[in-house]
C-alpha cells in the first residue's frame, strides 16, 4: 500500500547500487558500480577472454601479490627484525604458531610464483606485440614492476636471518660495492673517494656488512617502502591498460588495420 520500503530492502538497496536481474543493463552496472570490478571495462572483446591469448599471467601475478600481502601481514605479527630475535621468531613461526609454517610457505612460494608469472607475463606481452603503439608507456611501467617484483623478493630473502639469507644478500649487495664511481670497489672510486662506509652498499646495508642495520633496512623496504611503490605502479599499469584501449588484440576494423592500430576498446 504505502511506498515505504522494508527495513532489509533499504539495507540491500544501500549496499548494491543495481538490481540483479540478468539484463544487459544490470550486467554493465555490476561492473561499473563496483569499486573493485570497475577496474574492468563493462564489455570486452571475446579474444581478450581466451587463455590461449593472455595466458592469464598478468591477473595471476596480481593475485600472487595479494597472497603475499595477506600472508605477509600475518607473518609481521610474529616477526621482529633484529639479529637477536629474527631467527628465533622464524623457529617459533615454524614450530609454535598454529599454521605459522603454512603462512610462511604460502608467502615464500607465492613470491617465487609471482617472479615466474611476471616473467611469463612479459614474455606473452612481447610475443603478442602488445607493447606496440599506443601501449609503449605501459610496457615501460611493466618493466619497472618487473624490477620491483625482484627487489621485493630480494629484500624478503634476508629476513629469515639464516645462512641462506645472509650469504645470498652478501653476494647480491657486494654487486653494489662494484658500482662505478659510487661503490668502493668499482671503477672510479678513487675519483669520488667513496669508502666501505660511505658507498651505495653502505647505504643499502646501513654499514659495511650485513648486520642489524641491514636487517632493519631490508625489513622496512620489504614491508612498507617497496609495496607502496609497487602498488602505485600497479595502479598506473592497470589504469593504462584501459586507457590504451583495453586488452590488446588484432585490428578490430579495416581502417584500424590500415593505420596499424590494434583492437580493443577506445
Amino acid at each position, binding site marked *: 500500500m504505502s511506498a515505504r520500503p522494508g527495513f532489509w530492502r533499504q539495507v540491500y538497496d544501500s549496499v548494491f547500487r543495481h538490481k540483479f536481474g540478468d539484463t*544487459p543493463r544490470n*550486467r*554493465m552496472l555490476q*561492473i561499473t558500480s563496483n569499486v573493485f*570490478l570497475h577496474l*574492468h*571495462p*563493462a*564489455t*570486452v572483446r*571475446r579474444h*581478450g*577472454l581466451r587463455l590461449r*591469448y593472455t595466458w*592469464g599471467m598478468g*591477473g595471476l601475478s596480481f*593475485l600472487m601479490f595479494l*597472497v603475499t600481502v595477506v600472508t605477509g601481514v600475518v607473518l609481521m605479527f610474529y616477526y621482529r627484525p633484529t*639479529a637477536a630475535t629474527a*631467527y628465533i621468531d622464524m*623457529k617459533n613461526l*615454524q614450530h609454535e604458531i598454529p599454521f605459522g609454517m*603454512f603462512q610462511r*610457505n604460502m608467502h615464500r*612460494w607465492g613470491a617465487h*610464483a609471482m617472479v615466474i608469472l611476471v*616473467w611469463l607475463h612479459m*614474455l606473452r606481452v612481447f610475443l*603478442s*606485440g*602488445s607493447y*606496440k603503439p599506443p601501449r609503449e608507456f605501459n*610496457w615501460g611501467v611493466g618493466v*619497472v614492476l618487473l624490477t620491483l617484483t*625482484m627487489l621485493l*623478493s630480494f629484500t624478503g630473502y634476508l629476513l629469515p*636471518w*639464516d*645462512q*641462506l*639469507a*645472509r*650469504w*645470498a644478500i652478501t*653476494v*647480491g649487495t*657486494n*654487486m653494489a660495492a*662494484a658500482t*662505478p664511481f659510487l*661503490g668502493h670497489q*668499482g*671503477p672510479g672510486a678513487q675519483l669520488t673517494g667513496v669508502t666501505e662506509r660511505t658507498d651505495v652498499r653502505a647505504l643499502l646495508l646501513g654499514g659495511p656488512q*650485513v648486520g642489524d642495520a641491514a636487517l632493519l633496512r631490508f625489513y622496512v623496504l620489504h614491508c612498507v617502502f617497496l609495496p607502496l611503490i609497487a602498488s602505485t605502479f600497479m595502479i598506473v599499469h592497470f589504469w593504462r591498460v*584501459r586507457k590504451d584501449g583495453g586488452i*590488446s588484440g588484432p585490428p*578490430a576494423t579495416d581502417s584500424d588495420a590500415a593505420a*596499424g592500430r590494434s*583492437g580493443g*576498446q577506445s
Partner: protein
Amino acid sequence: MSAPRDDETLPDAVTTWPHLVRIELLATLAALSLLTAWSILVDAPLEEVADPNRTPDPSKAPWYFLGLQELLVYFDPWLAGVVLPTLIILGLMAIPYLDRNPLGNGYYTLRQRPFAIGVFLFGFVGLWIAPILIGVFCRGPGWNWYWPWEPWEIAKSPHLTNINLTDLLGIPAAIGGVLVAAWYSLGGVFWLWRRRTPALAQLGGGRYALTAFLLLTMAAVPLKMALRLLLNVKYVWVTPWFNV
C-alpha cells in the same frame, strides 16, 4: 568509470560480467588451490642461524639473480652486477620505441616479426633462463661445474690460468680498447652498408644507433663467454681503471 560507448557495436564484444569475471574467479580458485597444496606439501627452507664467520661454499644469490651471478664468471662485478643489469632494464623499456614494425600488434605471429621475436627469445631463454638453470643446478664449491648427480665432496680442479686477449695475441694492452671500439663500430659499418633498406630507413639514424648498441652489447656477452671457454681469455681490454 567509463560508460559503455561504441564497445557494444564491436562484433565480438561481450559483457565483462559474467564472461571475464567468471574466468578470473576460476583462475583464482585454481591458482590458490595449487599454491595451498604446494604450501602444505613443501616447506620453505630454513638453514642454521646467520653466522658472519662461516661463509658457505658456494654462496649463491637468490635463484632469480643467478643469471647475473653466472655472468660474474666472465665479467668483473661492475659490469656483471651493475652495468649489464641496468642496460637490461633500460633496454627492455626502450623496446617499444626501437621496434617500429607496425605488424604483429595484438596477435601472435612469427612470420611478420622474425627478427624481434628471435632476439627477444635469445635474450630471455639463452641469456636469462639458461644461466639461472646453470646456477641453480650445475654450480658447486668454488663455483665449479658440478652436474646435479655429482657429489660436492669430490674436489674439482681450480680454475685454469686465464690470459688476457692482448697478451694472447702479443699486442699492446691499449689495443684492447681498439678491439672493443671495433666491435661497436660494426654497427656503423652495417648502417653504411644497409641504410637504404626499408627496415633501416624506417628506423632512422638515432633509433638505429641505440638499437645497434644494445644488440652488440647483448651479443658481446656470449662472445666473451666463448672466448673464455675456448681460449681461456680473461680480459679483452685491460686498463689501470677497469677491465672488460
